[in-house]
């Protein structure tokens, strides 16, 4: 029996892995503050991912794109990759090779991946799928507080609040055990859909505000306006602990509730009621504002989060016991994954790659010259979009991600991957992206290796090895180490032991914002609650900002932001707004969860949630197959009539692949600061789809034998 943590989301529920019937591993929940002994369906069935029948155990290699991949041995595969990479580098320079990582990778892997890119490849071209998750909240948090830790307080604090506002977050569906912390506070849920969380809010005397997708900034500004009219701004706090209120207010001043109603579709009376509910709790220092992807995944996501943070600051919430602002990190290691250097502009410890002191420090730890470190590279979508173009990378090494399903505008991403000279994918199943690769490297997963994760509270956790990987499988650290050696790196520069890497990560992050130098295997094994910064063997920082914020003047900054429309508007050909999101039974691209029989049976295919009147207009009934068409592509989805839906908005879960992929529709317009794509707003139309020859409207997913790829 091993106590470890879940392979999926950032709640990182604790679980016991034990031998079940027939000797197969089985999961039971374990007590832990974030999950309080609970688990969702994904967690309960997580052990099944360890024994999926289509597990990869031998490297796959194909000599050219027209031939099928064939199984080969590790030396052949790695030699092939190293040769091709060296040839490309010699011919076209180090930036001709790119690396793409993931927010599900352990801290040790994320750190090593960044180091591998900068040292073994010498490339600036590295980014990761977290850009599609956390980047807007991270950018807004950094500019407001001088530091980005998703929740700068333990999740258990939230349970004590009177009111929690959830903007674009649906934890009842995406992180069910988190709801245990939200059972006492009244909830204000901001979501275009009557989500499971919105239902909970309404059942318990809270509020659900349903803005038109893409108008959250206006709504946050309208709430600030209403709160100030109601006398709820904390003038003393604003004067002592913040700067920038006046300039921020000048924008909010133009968002009186009636105007906000016109843009968002949220009744002015509801805006006032929400401001009143939140404002009264704020007066008692018992309110939280939490954001999720729904409000962040926009081409203006950073400004939208800033608008929410401005509201929190105006009410005096952050940096106080009992109240605050936080973002709910999504991916398992979405927090740690954004701290240690797999991001294009970043070095370990949440350091900036252009900061000379940061370069000096990290270069010293790595034993190289600071000048040898490359500068910042392209952000995730820009990187994918540059692949195989004249100025872009010719090869891509991909770890822990499945961008064919999870990136916006799938057709475009596929075309770019197709244009590469070399695509190398490390995964444990043949994901949709792995299915396109020239070389597939079968790697260990989750409970087959040890490593640390940093959960949504900024708490560093130990994931334990509970079982041995299948024969033939290597860990990501082993893969990187053996590739580095083939690329001429010193033998000891890329260790394969996670604890050794953790110790090095500690040294590399020392003195940075996300300082892990006091994290040791012993403290983790001891179950100590280690919230970063952990600057010494004694320290842990459960609550940040209680005395001061992380800017040099110690103050939080309100950033003046205004609403702006989404990147694309509806028109007569595309009269509806499509928005995307998650289901309880699936995770990200579905690579893991679609392979679990129970989860697959519960939600086997994509659907489109649509108001009955909107469906009736185009002749669609419940259970019909709809063709959802955007300016970029289409998705075939089962119609699910939903009387609580907005008339102008349809919803599709994004865990499915091929013609069922919601990301066939989505818009790659990027946020100017965070480079977050506009996942949450696409102009679409619905039309009936003729049933295929099986008589089953929704087609089988294409690509892999079954679905695939983690991340």
């Amino acid at each position, binding site marked *: 029996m091993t106590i470890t943590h879940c392979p999926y989301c950032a709640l990182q529920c604790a679980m016991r892995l034990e031998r079940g019937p027939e000797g197969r591993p089985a999961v039971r*929940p374990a007590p832990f503050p974030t999950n*309080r*002994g*609970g*688990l*969702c*369906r994904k967690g*309960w069935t997580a052990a099944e991912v360890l024994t999926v029948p289509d597990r990869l155990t031998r490297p796959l290699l194909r000599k050219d794109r027209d031939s099928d991949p064939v199984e080969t041995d590790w030396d052949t595969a790695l030699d092939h990759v190293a040769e091709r990479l060296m040839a490309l580098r010699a011919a076209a320079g180090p930036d001709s090779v790119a690396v793409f990582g993931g927010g599900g990778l352990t801290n040790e892997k994320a750190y090593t991946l960044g180091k591998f890119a900068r040292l073994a490849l010498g490339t600036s071209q590295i980014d990761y799928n977290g850009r599609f998750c956390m980047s807007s909240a991270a950018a807004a948090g950094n500019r407001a507080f001088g530091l980005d830790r998703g929740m700068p307080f333990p999740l258990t604090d939230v349970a004590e609040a009177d009111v929690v506002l959830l903007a674009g977050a649906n*934890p*009842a569906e995406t992180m*069910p*055990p*988190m*709801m*245990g912390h939200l*059972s006492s506070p009244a909830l204000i849920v901001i979501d275009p859909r009557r989500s*499971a969380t919105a239902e*909970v809010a309404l059942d318990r005397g809270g509020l659900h505000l349903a803005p*038109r997708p893409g108008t959250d900034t206006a709504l946050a500004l309208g709430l600030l306006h209403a709160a*100030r*009219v109601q006398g709820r701004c904390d003038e003393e706090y604003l004067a002592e602990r913040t700067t920038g209120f006046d*300039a921020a*207010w*000048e*924008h909010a*001043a*133009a968002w*009186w509730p*009636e*105007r906000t*109603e*016109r843009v968002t*579709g*949220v*009744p*002015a*009376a*509801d805006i006032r009621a929400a401001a009143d509910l939140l404002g009264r709790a704020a007066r008692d220092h018992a309110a939280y504002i939490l954001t999720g992807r729904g409000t962040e995944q926009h081409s203006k996501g950073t400004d939208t989060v800033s608008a929410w943070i401005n509201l929190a600051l105006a009410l005096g919430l952050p940096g106080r016991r009992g109240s605050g602002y936080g973002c709910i990190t999504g991916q398992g290691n979405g927090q740690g994954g954004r701290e240690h250097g797999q991001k294009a502009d970043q070095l370990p410890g949440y350091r900036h790659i252009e900061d000379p002191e940061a370069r000096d420090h990290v270069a010293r730890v790595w034993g190289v010259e600071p000048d040898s470190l490359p500068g910042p590279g392209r952000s995730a979508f820009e990187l994918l979009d540059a692949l195989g173009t004249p100025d872009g990378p010719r090869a891509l090494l991909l770890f822990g991600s499945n961008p064919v399903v999870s990136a916006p505008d799938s057709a475009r991403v596929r075309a770019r991957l197709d244009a590469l000279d070399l695509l190398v994918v490390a995964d444990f199943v043949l994901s949709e992206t792995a299915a396109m690769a020239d070389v597939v490297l079968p790697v260990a997963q989750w409970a087959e290796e040890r490593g640390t994760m940093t959960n949504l509270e900024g708490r560093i956790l130990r994931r334990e090895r509970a079982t041995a990987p299948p024969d033939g499988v290597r860990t990501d650290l082993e893969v990187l180490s053996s590739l580095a050696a083939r690329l001429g790196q010193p033998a000891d520069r890329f260790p394969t032991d996670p604890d050794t890497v953790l110790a090095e990560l500690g040294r590399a992050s020392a003195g940075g914002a996300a300082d892990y130098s006091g994290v040791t295997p012993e403290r983790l094994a001891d179950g100590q609650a280690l919230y970063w910064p952990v600057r010494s063997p004694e320290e842990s920082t459960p609550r940040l900002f209680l005395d001061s914020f992380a800017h040099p003047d110690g103050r939080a900054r309100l950033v*003046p932001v205004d609403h702006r429309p989404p990147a694309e508007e*509806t028109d007569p050909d595309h*009269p509806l707004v499509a928005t995307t999101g998650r289901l*309880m039974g699936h995770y990200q691209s579905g690579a893991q969860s679609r392979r679990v029989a129970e989860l697959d049976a*519960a939600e086997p295919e994509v659907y489109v949630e649509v*108001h*009955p*009147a909107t469906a*009736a*207009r185009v002749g669609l009934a*419940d259970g019909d197959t709809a063709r959802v068409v955007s300016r970029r592509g289409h998705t075939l989805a089962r119609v699910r*009539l939903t*009387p*609580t839906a907005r*008339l*102008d908005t349809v919803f599709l879960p994004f865990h499915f692949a091929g013609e069922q992929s919601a990301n066939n529709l989505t818009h790659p317009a990027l946020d100017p600061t965070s480079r977050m794509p506009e996942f949450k707003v696409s102009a679409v139309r619905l039309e009936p789809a003729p049933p295929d020859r099986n008589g089953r409207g929704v087609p089988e997913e294409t690509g892999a034998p079954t679905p695939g790829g983690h991340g």
Partner: protein
Amino acid sequence: MNTLQNTSPRRIVVVGNGMVGARFAQEVARLDPSGEHVRVSVVGAEPHTAYNRVLLSGVLAGDHTAERIRLPVPDGPGITVRTGTTATDLDTRRRVLTLDDGSRLPYDELVLATGARAVLPPVPGVRASEGGPGEGVGVLRDLEDCRRLIAMARPGAPMVVLGGGVLGLEIARGLVGRGVRVSVVEASPWIMCRQIDRAAADILADRYAALGVTVHSGRTAVRWTPGSGLELDDGRILPGDALVVAAGVRADTDLAASAGIEVDHGVVVDDRMATSDPRVHAIGDCARHPGGGAGLVQPGWEQAAVLAERLTGTAPHATYTGARPLTRLKAEGIELTAFGRVHEEEGSPNAETVTISDPYGGRYAKLAVREEKVVGAVLLGFPEAAATLAGLYDTGDPVPSDRLALLQGAPLPTSGLQEARDAPVCRCNAVGRIEIEQAWLDGARTREDIAERTRATTGCGGCVREVRAVLEGMRSAPAG
């Protein structure tokens, strides 16, 4: 606008630093942040920086202070703002604007954003001989007016509002909130007669009466006597320490008219916001576009955005094609939305109207639909329907077939949809009642036992109570 490249920036002069003039400069700052294409000088008569005129009634109501309704000062290397300065002469031939301090501003493009002024009706005592307001008479057009009104509004004192339109009613709501005893006089047969029908107005008047505001519709003012009150055409005298006139506005077109630019109840503009002089443009309340929009801020802002796109070269062919004006009364505790053609549509052959009248509840709704599209509505006390219908009016999307459900703001009848997908007790783990009962039969007696066997309650925990209820039901069920 490639022709602009490699030339010196064009000089734009904006007359008027109100909501629309300032917005234009702000849009320019956004579209041309380095000032490489255009330079903008904004000239404003008021001594303050731009502020949000729409919220003056909020300042009067005590919701805001003057400080709080300031608008962002347009910021950019190419932008200057001069306050407390009036334009005295416009020479369109030489393209020079002269200011009251004697300075002369040459321009390549001129933007008139001079707004509108309050109209004082020719009633003895209301208008002084020099044309300004009489003794004890105020209007609400700028911050200075607002300060005067606040000084006049003493708790318990009587005040009369002349004009029962949107502004008059907002003023009345603000004053009554300050404890003033308010009467409203409206010459038309009912209040807000341009926006709502009589039945709605009657209910609205009742709502005001409940707040302590008496409404006198269909009455004209005969004489204002300071210290006494306002005499009506029926001989009644409404007591008032002060009179607030909200009887409409007139576009401020003096500068344009004196320069020979075509004026007809406003500076006449086309879809490009150009006046009869192609180098002179007009936006906001001073402009008259065939598609309407004067008197409301949103159309003015849209006009500012279009003109900024044109003049910066960002979108040289952008046009403004008219507004879909929507009236939203800003009066605490009263939710009133009105738009489109409700009166005209009633009784016309292709139109249908749905009406809900609830005088007791102080609510009223009228929806006019033509060819499946919303063409007008009056909604008093229907906040959710108002938000939804305004959206349908804006987009022109078809109206759902169940008009009543739509007005009530309720989801449509589900016709068993959700029941068909019978909701499990524990949603997180998809555990139904039958499985919980089976677990009980197999010996599970506590919530913990049930969790152990079925996983129910281990997700979000929201079903704990329901699981306990199922157990309780099994316990008390007759044996066998």
